[in-house]
């Protein structure tokens, strides 16, 4: 199902990706005490963040983050508002480049072994393989069909048969096909909030990315729509690596294999979800997941 597109000219050898993970977690000696639990709980990382500092202009938003995200698993980012979850997520497809002055000031982000901030990385190719779903469902005010086909169209695909197949496949995947197959030409703005968000997911998977980033995809939805999306995320994790930012600890517990807890721009703890919630090692994590956070 998942096709591998090399991000750029350099064909990424899977070996290399694995060797990146083999780096022992204690590689950075001057890692502060707080960040000592940032070792990856996984053995086959697709995204590797190493010693990363991130700045919005002069304001530093992330401090020395080390993180390995596993292939075809769901990883949740949790933490209080403003702790940098979105910032980190948006580093993975370099959408932060849009913000004047925003930059990684130290360290690196590797995806499939390739440092994505290097010169020879083509943004279109990167983003084709690292899809993103935003907090506010924002379908384009075009037809349902055109919404899903958009990603393929901008990559030069115009054969109707290919687009038709892709639209059906993605809508089916997003559990929308049976609901919407008779009104593909209707304007997407006429859908319900939950349908819109699922359409956005369908749109994001149309380019067959390997990684799907989701920034609070359910925060504007009611419980029923939310559970549909969660079900969908569960399905997707068969084929995709999913990274999801969420404010709901129940949600993290339900969908995520691994969970990372952030506080004030630092990664405090990263472990399998079970562990984070039942047996956190850091006091701050414990306070947060128990809801005793001040």
């Amino acid at each position: 199902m998942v096709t591998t597109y090399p991000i750029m000219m350099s064909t990424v050898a899977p070996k290399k990706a694995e060797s990146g993970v083999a780096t022992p977690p204690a590689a950075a000696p001057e890692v502060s005490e707080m960040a000592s639990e940032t070792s990856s709980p996984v053995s086959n990382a697709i995204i590797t963040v190493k010693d990363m500092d991130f700045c919005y202009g002069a304001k530093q938003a992330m401090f020395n983050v080390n993180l390995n995200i596993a292939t075809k698993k769901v990883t949740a980012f949790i933490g209080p508002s403003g702790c940098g979850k979105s910032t980190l997520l948006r580093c993975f497809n370099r959408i932060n480049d849009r913000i004047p002055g925003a930059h990684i000031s130290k360290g690196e982000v590797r995806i499939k072994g390739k440092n994505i901030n290097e010169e020879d990385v083509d943004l279109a190719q990167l983003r084709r393989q690292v899809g993103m779903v935003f907090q506010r469902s924002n379908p384009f005010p075009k037809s349902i069909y055109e919404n899903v086909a958009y990603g393929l169209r901008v990559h030069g695909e115009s054969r109707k048969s290919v687009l038709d197949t892709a639209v059906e496949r993605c809508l089916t995947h997003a559990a929308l096909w049976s609901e919407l197959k008779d009104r593909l030409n209707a304007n997407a703005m006429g859908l319900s909030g939950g349908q819109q968000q699922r359409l956005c997911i369908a749109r994001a998977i149309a380019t067959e990315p390997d990684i799907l980033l989701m920034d609070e995809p359910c925060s504007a939805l009611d419980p029923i729509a939310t559970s549909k999306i969660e079900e969908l995320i569960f399905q997707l994790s068969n084929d995709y690596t999913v990274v999801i930012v969420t404010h709901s600890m129940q949600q993290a517990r339900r969908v995520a294999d691994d969970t990372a807890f952030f506080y004030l721009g630092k990664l405090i703890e990263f472990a399998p979800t079970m562990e984070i919630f039942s047996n956190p090692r850091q006091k701050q994590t414990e306070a947060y997941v128990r809801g005793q956070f001040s």
Partner: protein
Amino acid sequence: MQTPAQDTATPGTNPFAKQKSHRETKESLIKWTLRSATYVILIITASIFTHIFIRGAPVVFSLTPPFINTSFLTKLPETLHVLEDKQGKKYETTPTGVDVIKKQLGDNLRNEKTISYSGGGILGPIVGTILLVGVCVVVALGLGIASAIYLSEYAKQGKFIEMARLAILNLSGVPSVVFGLFGLGMFVLSAPKITSHPLDRSLLAIPLGFGEYISFEGWDTSVLAGGFTLAFVILPVVITASEECLKAVPQGFRETSLALGATKWQTIWKCVLPFAMPGILTSSILGIARAAGETAPIMFTAALAFKDKLPWQGDTGIMGIFTQSVQALPYHIYTLSARIPQNEYSERAQYGSVFVFLVLVMSLAGASVILRRKLRAKYKW
């Protein structure tokens, strides 16, 4: 002594009655002032329109079949001759008809009057205005939208861009006659053109090798020069409006599109412009309607008081359509009302022209509203 609330008042007694009515009077006074201001404007506008309609409509329309006076719309302007015989009977005729009537009347002719431009129709000015507005629309929208896109999507926001914006805004305060003179210097006398025989007054002639030159000698008084000048008059409006409309497109669309791997231009072309277009067109139409009515900018650059040929009837045929000077409605109206002696015979062409001009501008506005509705229905969010 302001006592606050009614809720302290016991039911039945109302110790604050006077104060309350005071406030009410003030409120209603304000309301009536605002309302009458609106009505005054409405009444004035309505009376102008009615006046023009009552005097102008009969020139173009009639109550008897075929209900429309096509000759006013399909003939070029010509001199009106009025002959009067000794019995006081008057004959209105064209320059070619004069001799026939003169012969018929013989000694019976008492006097003869000629009224310039008041006979025939106004086809020349109509065609000229349409051509000028056409060029103006293409140039103004092309240049205006392009620079609005640059300013709002590409340019790094900073001092320089702020200054550029300010300069553009200030442009809209420049009197239109200044634009006319600018157009004369720029487009009529010094814009570049490709020719095999550069004029002596050409500022600079660069040979292209195969016998042709790029010569900075201007486009002469022509539709092209006039259209460009008009475009510059309304560019500030177009740029400012376009920028507003581009900004109104949610940032989320851009971000989503980029996140799907689209390039910046793909994003603008597919996810920003289509959604900004309805607004851009509607606001620009207002500017275009203004341009259609401007006299000063075309006076030195394109318009003639009188021309006995349509633009495509010149030596160069249809090719010369944009390089000819033309008559234009606003300038024609100016000529009719300020340059010829006024009498009962000059009114027909005056009111007829104004009426036709109003209808043209209104249909332009109507078209824009329809266009906007259509686009809005397609791209609403």
